[in-house]
C-alpha cells in the first residue's frame, strides 16, 4: 500500500526537477525533424518554371481531393501547370502526393505554421508553393 505511493511521489519529484518539455511559443520555436510533413513546396526547373509535368497523379492519389491542376504546353512540347492549387484547409498531410510524383516536383517542408483569416487564404497557389516562407 505504501510502496506504490512512494513510487508515485518519486515520479512526481523527478519531473519537478527535470528540464521542461514545453516550449514558450511563439518566443521559442520548435524545430521539427526534417522528415516532418507540412506545407507543400513546388520545386523549380532551371528556367524557373515549376517542375511539375501535370500528370495528375498527385491529384489522383490525394485522399482528400484537395489538389486542382490546369496544365499547358509550351512550343517545345514541355508541359507545366498554369494553375496548381492545394487547399490546405482540406489537406491531411499524408504526403501521398509527394510519393506519387514521378518527377519529384512536389515536396513537403517543415513549415507547420499554417493559418489564415479566411478559408480562401488557406488555398496554396503556384506562386506561394514555389516560394515557401523561411523557417
Amino acid at each position: 500500500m505504501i510502496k506504490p505511493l512512494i513510487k508515485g511521489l518519486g515520479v512526481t519529484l523527478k519531473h519537478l526537477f527535470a528540464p521542461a518539455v514545453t516550449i514558450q511559443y511563439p518566443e521559442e520555436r520548435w524545430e521539427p525533424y526534417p522528415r516532418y510533413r507540412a506545407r507543400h513546396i513546388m520545386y523549380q526547373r532551371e528556367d524557373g518554371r515549376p517542375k511539375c509535368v501535370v500528370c495528375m497523379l498527385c491529384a489522383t492519389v490525394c485522399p482528400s481531393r484537395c489538389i486542382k491542376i490546369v496544365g499547358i504546353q509550351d512550343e517545345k512540347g514541355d508541359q507545366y501547370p498554369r494553375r496548381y492549387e492545394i487547399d490546405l484547409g482540406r489537406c491531411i498531410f499524408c504526403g501521398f502526393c509527394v510519393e506519387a510524383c514521378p518527377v519529384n516536383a512536389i515536396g513537403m517542408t517543415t513549415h507547420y505554421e499554417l493559418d489564415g483569416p479566411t478559408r480562401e487564404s488557406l488555398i496554396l497557389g503556384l506562386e506561394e508553393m514555389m516560394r515557401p516562407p523561411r523557417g
Partner: protein
Amino acid sequence: MPRLTIDGQVIEVPPGTKVIDAAEALGIVIPRLCYHPALGPAGACRLCAVSFLDGPVKGVLMSCSIEARDGMVVSTEHPEAVSFRKQVIEWLMMNHPHDCPVCDEGGHCLLQEVTVASGHCRRRYPGPKRTFVDQDLGPFVQQEMNRCIHCWRCRRFYQDYAGYRDFGALGIGWRTYFGRATSGVLESPFSGNLVDICPTGALTDKPSRFMARRWDVERAPSLCIHCSLGCNVTVSAHLREIVQVEARYNGDVNGHFICDRGRYGFDYANHPLRPRSPAVMGEETSWSKAIAQAVAGIEEVTRAHGPKAIGVVSSERASLEAMVTLSLLCEETGWEGPAFFQDEETLVKNRLLAQVALSHGIAGLREVEKADLILIVGTDPICEAPLLALAIRQAWRRGAWVGALDPRPIELPLTFEQSGLWDEELKKALLKGAQREEGLEEVLPGWKEALDRSREIVVILGPTVVDISSLRRCGEFVSKLGKKARIFPVFRGPNSLAASALSRESTFRSLARKIREGKIKALLLVEADPFHGTKMRGELEASIRSLELTIVIDYLPSEVVKRAHILIPSATIYEGGGSFINQEGRLQRASPVHRGGIPLRRNLQGNLRPPRTFAKGPPGETAKSSWQVLLELGERIGKGLGIEDKEDIWKVARERFPFLWQVEPGGRISWEGGGVQEEAMEEEEDPSQSSQEMRVLLVTSTFAGEELSQYSSKLDPVRNEARAFFNEEVASQRGLRRGDRIWIRMGDVRVPFSVKTSPKVPSKLLILDPGNEGLWREVREVSKTIGWTEIERA
C-alpha cells in the same frame, strides 16, 4: 460451324470468325494493338500471339489473323506465347518514350495497359530511341509521333475505311511516319475517330488536352443530337464542363465511329452566354419569381383572350419527354400548338417522308452498309448526316453501285454517279425509272445494270431540297422496285420523326399568321429558336415584337432568348438526359452526365479563385429539364397532368401515343403514319420560269448550319465561309470563276459569298450555303429568286 477449344473451353463460332473474337466471346481478352473489329487484322503488332497446340495449324501464331477452324486447340496462357508477348512489348517499348506522366493518353492507354500487364519495367537496350518531328494536324487531333507503335490503325481507318487521302503512312520500316505530307488541317470530317482508335498517345484529342485524367471525369452514355442519325456517344465532364465526346459502340446504329460534328459540337453546353438563371424582362430573378410571373402572364392572357391566344412552339431538337409533355399540356389547356416545324411545307414533307419510309420498310445505317444499290435523292450525306457517308462507303467497298439525284455538288469519299436533276425533271426521271424505262439510265449511267443485279436496294431520301410531290413520287418509285427496296430517311433534327408523329396542324408559320391577325397574344417557346435558319427574319421580328408575352424555355443563347419577356433556362441533354427517336425510328435514351453549372475554368481565368459559398447545388446549375419546367407551369395554372417523373411520362405516353412508345429503348417504332393532308399544300409555281432570275436554294454544310453545333467554339476553326454554287457554264458566261468573291444584294444588305461552280448545278438554280450564320443576321428576307443584277463582284 467451326468448333474450337480455347483455354479448355469449347466454343462454336460462325465461319470466318477470327480466333481473337472467338476468345472474346468466351470472355478471354487476348491483348491486341493493331486489330480493330471494324478495320480487321493487320498483323502489325504481333501482340495477339497465342499457342495453337493442335488442329490445322500449330505453333505460336497471331490470333487476329487466323480464322477459327474445326478442331483447333488454342492456349492463350502457354508459357511460349506468354514469353513471346512479353518480348513483343519489350521491343515495342524500345523506341517508346517512358513518360506516361506527361502523356495525355496515360490512364486510358491500351499500350500502357498491356505494358503493365506484361510486367515490363526495366529498359535493357541502352541505345538511342527513334524520334520524329511532329506535325500540326489542325484543331482536333494532336500528334506526338514518338509514341507511335506502328499499328497502322490510323491509316487503315483514314484511307481505307473513311476514304480520305491526306493522312497516311510515309517512309518504311521503323521510320514509318503517320501523318500528312506537310502540316495542315485534316480534311476528313471524321478525323476525330483517329483519337479513339489510336491505341497510344500518338494521336490524342486536342480540345480536351491536359484537362483531366480519365478517372477524374464524370462519364455517362449519351446520344449525339447534331443530326437525325442519333449516334451513340460517351460524354465526359470535368469541373462542371463538358470536355470530351467519344464514340460509343452500338452495332445497330453508328458502329464504332462518329463524325466530327458530333464529337466537337458539344461546346454549346459550356457557352459563356448560355442562360444560367431565370430572367424577367432581361433581369435575373429567382426560379420561383420567374415561374410566378409566367403563370400570372399566362393567366392574364387567357382571361383576356381565351386559351387560344397562347401559341406553343417547340422544335425537332426537343427531347421526347418535352414533346409529350407539351402535347398533353396543349390538349389540357387548349393552347394553340405545339408547332414543331417552321412551316406547313416542312411539316408535310417530314410526315410524308416518315410515312413513306415506315410503310416501305425503313432502313438504318446497317442496312445501308449491306446494300448493293444505293440511290441518294435530295440529300447531301456529308452535310446532313455525316456518318451516313461512311456507311455508304462501306457498301461501296463491297461493290455497291451508288447514284445521287441532287442539285447540290455532293462530295462523298467514293466514286458515284450524280445528276443535278431538280423538280419536274426529277419527278419525270423517277417515274420513268420506276417503269424501267430509260429515265434513270440516261441521267445515271449504269443504273439499269446495277438494278438488274441488285438484291438489296436502299433509297436515301431527305426532305430539304425536294418538293412534296417528288417525295411522293419517290415513294411510288420505291414501291415499284419491290420488296428488296427500303427507304433511308434523313431528317433535319434529332427528333424529327417523333415531331412529325406528334404534330398537329400548327406550324410556326401558321402561328405567326395568327399573331399578325391578332389572334395569338402570347408565345411559349420550348427549346426552339425560330430565328435559326429562317428566311423571313424581318417578318419574324415584327411578329415577336407585337406579342404581349414571350416565354422561352431553352439552354442556348439563341436570338429568341434575347427577346424573351420571361426566360427559364433548361438543362441540356448532358444534364437532364432524354429520349430521342432517330431517323430509322429507333428509340434511344441518354443518361445525364453531370449536374451542370457554370464551368469552374471560367472562374480560373484571371486570378479568381472558385467561389466558396454555401449552396445546395453547384452555382449556375440548371437543374430542370424543359419537361419538368412545363409540368410545374401546368401544375401552377391548375392543369396538372398528374405526372411526377420520367417513369410517369413514359406510362402516360404509352397509353396516349402507343405508336411511339410500344418499343423498349433500342427498338424501332412502328407507325403507319397518318394525317398527311395533301390538299393543304398547294404547290407553288416556279417563279423563275421565264425570267433571267435564278431560284434560290438554301443549304447547310457539315460544320455550319446545324443549330446546336453553331454554338460550339470547338468547331469555329473548321467552319466554312458563305458559299454560292453556280452552274459552271452560266458562271463562265458571266465571267465568274471558282474562288471569286461576290456580293449578293438581299433587300438592303449585301452579303459576301465565295463562288463555287459545278456542272452538276442546274442552270436555273443558285445554291447558297450561309456558312457561318453571323453574316446573315442582317438579312430581313431571303428572296425566292435572285437575278444577275443583284450580284456584283467584290
